């Protein structure tokens, strides 16, 4: 249904000099141009994707298509056939007509607009999907769809309605080549190799062989480096699987929350190295040639060692969303941005760069457009 125009709150933010309050220092921050804050009354904008003048938002309240020229918005939720209104991924099909939504508990949703109306089809376990929790979808050059779920990865080749076209990859059937069945991120490099970010490290599938790396290989900073930052961070991670993985990385009775193996975010960089945001272990750069990790933490200038979102702008600058705000990394220096001002919350879940140069940031309570001049 169309929900009308977004309430555009052009917050008259006074850009007083900001300071790194969280780190307890008085290091001046980069001052942006005035951002626009869109009050869309949604929680947890976990996905942001830009497509021309359209902006796709995956939230905990449904999927929004925002026309950034008119501010008209279309909301997809239960009324449009979704079973889950929590959207974790959105991917454009190579056909250019179809969007694929990964949902939390509601399977994989195929979305096509027909005469201005959304048409949805849900794919779930009975079709061949590993489970109903879909965290990422990517297409390779052959047109095959690769899906990350909480029960391993799927590949779909050809007609999605034929169960025989679905292939499952699990810890068990890959002989532990896949690090963990909880797959949060899928990346495909120019060699068409598939990278999987899981809760127990990263895995690489070249079409025949599997390789994997974890904290023992250097993924994520050690607890001695991040102990102060992760101390007393309240976790949203509950359930046997999360707790087992965290317990494996923490001392018994420890009052901190830390799993450097947990790939919360993952992005292939311009040089095809892998950038990995971890849960408490900071930002990890994996050099795919030397197969070595370099870790960046609050000691290097990150706002937090819990890294939720990553994205590269057109200049190759890496933008980093954390639980304590936004940072950028030009390869030499990490700068912190807008820890409180402009962003609607300190939690930065998502980001995207629009064709007009605008930089959109999604957080716990809405989205912010940061003009091009602000981040260049």
């Amino acid at each position, binding site marked *: 249904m169309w929900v009308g125009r977004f309430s555009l709150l052009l917050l008259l933010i006074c850009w007083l000099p900001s300071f790194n309050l969280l780190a307890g220092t008085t290091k001046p921050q980069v001052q942006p141009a005035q951002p626009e804050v869109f009050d869309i009354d949604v929680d947890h904008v976990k996905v942001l994707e830009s497509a021309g003048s359209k902006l796709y938002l995956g939230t905990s309240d449904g999927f929004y298509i925002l026309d950034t020229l008119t501010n008209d918005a279309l909301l997809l939720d239960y009324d449009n056939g979704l079973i889950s209104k929590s959207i974790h991924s959105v991917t454009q099909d190579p056909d250019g007509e179809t969007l694929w939504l990964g949902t*939390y508990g*509601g399977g994989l949703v195929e979305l096509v607009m027909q005469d201005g109306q959304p048409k949805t089809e849900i794919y779930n376990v*009975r079709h*061949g999907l590993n*489970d109903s929790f879909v965290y990422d979808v990517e297409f390779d050059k052959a047109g095959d769809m690769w899906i990350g779920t909480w029960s391993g990865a799927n590949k779909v080749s050809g007609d999605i309605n034929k169960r025989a076209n679905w292939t499952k990859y699990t810890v068990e059937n890959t002989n532990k080549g896949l690090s963990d069945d909880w797959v949060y991120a899928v990346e495909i490099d120019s060699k068409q190799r598939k990278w999987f970010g899981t809760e127990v490290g990263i895995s690489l599938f070249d079409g025949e062989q599997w390789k994997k790396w974890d904290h023992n290989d250097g993924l994520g900073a050690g607890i001695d480096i991040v102990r102060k930052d992760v101390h007393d961070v309240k976790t949203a991670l*509950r*359930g046997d699987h999360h707790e087992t993985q965290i317990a494996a990385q923490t001392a018994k009775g420890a009052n901190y929350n830390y799993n450097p193996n947990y790939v919360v975010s993952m992005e292939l960089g311009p040089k095809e190295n892998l950038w990995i945001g971890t849960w408490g272990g900071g930002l990890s750069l994996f050099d795919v040639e030397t197969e070595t990790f370099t870790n960046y933490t609050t000691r290097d200038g990150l706002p937090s060692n819990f890294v939720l979102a990553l994205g590269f702008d057109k200049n190759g600058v890496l933008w980093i969303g954390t639980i304590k705000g936004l940072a950028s990394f030009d390869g030499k220096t990490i700068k912190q941005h807008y820890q409180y001002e402009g962003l609607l919350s300190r939690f930065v879940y998502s980001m995207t760069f629009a064709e007009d140069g605008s930089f959109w940031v999604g957080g716990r309570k809405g989205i912010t457009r940061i003009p091009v001049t602000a981040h260049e």
Partner: protein
Amino acid sequence: MNKIASLLLSLLFLFPVIASGGLQESLKNGKEIYHAYCSVCHGDKGDGQSFVRNVIKTPPLDFTDKKLADQFSVERMRWAILLGKPGTAMPAWRFDLTLLQVSDVITYIRKEIMGLELTEPVSPEAAIYK
């Protein structure tokens, strides 16, 4: 024969029915299956308290609700697991679980979560034969 009966019969032929072990073995297997397939929605304790309950159209059932035990027969649970519940987040597990696995998880849910008295595991043979 109507379509539903035909479907049920065809399902029975699709799944090999393996003789079940004792109650303890069934409970052990059922617990593993529950935590692999069910707890993410129905909660580790079976009370429906999970993150997903707030974002799906129909909240997952609370198996600890005493009223549920009266309403949900073994057969109703069996077909819900095998065929799913259309229009809800309950998936159809018929391609992923054998009839024996389904029976084991029902055994676990009914005894350990619903607190029902069971002296033997739920039979993997569907009631259509009975």
